[in-house]
């Protein structure tokens, strides 16, 4: 194994957004079995350190590829596209207006204790999230890929994720 390898190569997966989840799980287990520190218990300290480094690398790779949003961001970085997560504040006005309305809706439902409203919003958001992920399949595929469009989708997904957290927080607060 080679520490310079990207995460997809490490697990023998094609460098695309759509991945075979079972293949990822299997490859992760195989890698883990190879690098698990216990396997190297009889080795000297330097060798143990190396195997520790490997175990960390494999875990990080797995965590990154398992989560669609992290996987998409990682793919963008491999393809040299800056997703502008920290710097790009100019989303489409209609999208931002919609975000504003969502946030208002969540706030009102939270204050009004309206659980079914919150659950309904969560369902609509989940649907929206699925649509955006489907868009990423093409934008981050191996043919006709479009890095800039993918970066925009990734930024949208980050807002969606934030909203989902807000809704879940509200639901949790109302349960107590």
């Amino acid at each position, binding site marked *: 194994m080679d520490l310079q390898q990207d995460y997809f190569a490490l697990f023998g997966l094609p460098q695309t957004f759509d991945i075979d989840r079972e293949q990822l799980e299997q490859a992760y287990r195989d890698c883990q079995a190879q690098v698990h520190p216990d396997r190297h218990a009889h080795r000297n300290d330097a060798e143990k350190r190396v195997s520790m480094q490997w175990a960390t690398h494999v875990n990080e790779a797995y965590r990154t590829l398992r989560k669609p949003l992290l996987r998409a961001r990682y793919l963008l970085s491999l393809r040299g596209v800056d*997703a*502008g*997560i*920290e*710097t*790009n*504040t*100019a*989303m489409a*006005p209609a*999208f*931002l*207006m919609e*975000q*504003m309305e969502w*946030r*208002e809706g969540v*706030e009102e439902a939270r204050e009004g204790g309206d659980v079914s409203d919150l659950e309904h919003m969560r369902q609509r958001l989940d649907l929206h999230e699925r649509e955006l992920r489907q868009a990423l399949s093409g934008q981050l595929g191996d043919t006709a890929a479009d890095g800039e469009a993918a970066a925009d989708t*990734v*930024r949208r997904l*980050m*807002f969606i*994720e*934030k*909203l989902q957290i807000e809704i879940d927080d509200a639901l949790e607060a109302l349960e107590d």
Partner: protein
Amino acid sequence: MAYSDKVLDHYENPRNVGAFGKDESGVGTGMVGAPACGDVMKLQIKVNGQGVIEDAKFKTYGCGSAIASSSLVTEWVKGKSLDEALEIKNTAIAEELALPPVKIHCSILAEDAIKAAVADYRKHQETKGE
């Protein structure tokens, strides 16, 4: 993380929260968002016949620093010309509020909101002039 006193002050007593009426003239609206934290900010300026910003309003969904940054800039832009407003830099906002490095993006958001509001106002003026 501890907020500075100035952030807390703006957070607890935000200035100029709200929006101008849809029919009001001389209004420019800037909408910006920060993907990293999901914050959304709407900043509106109301410009008088002399090209001076006479009022500003905001609505922000985000952390205390984002709310404080937008509250602060609504105070700062008042009485300024559009060009003067565009000179407001995020570093000045961050410094005034003593924002820690991880919250610098909140001040960037506020600076970009001013730019977006001015651009929106100018766009409307152009279409009116045609």
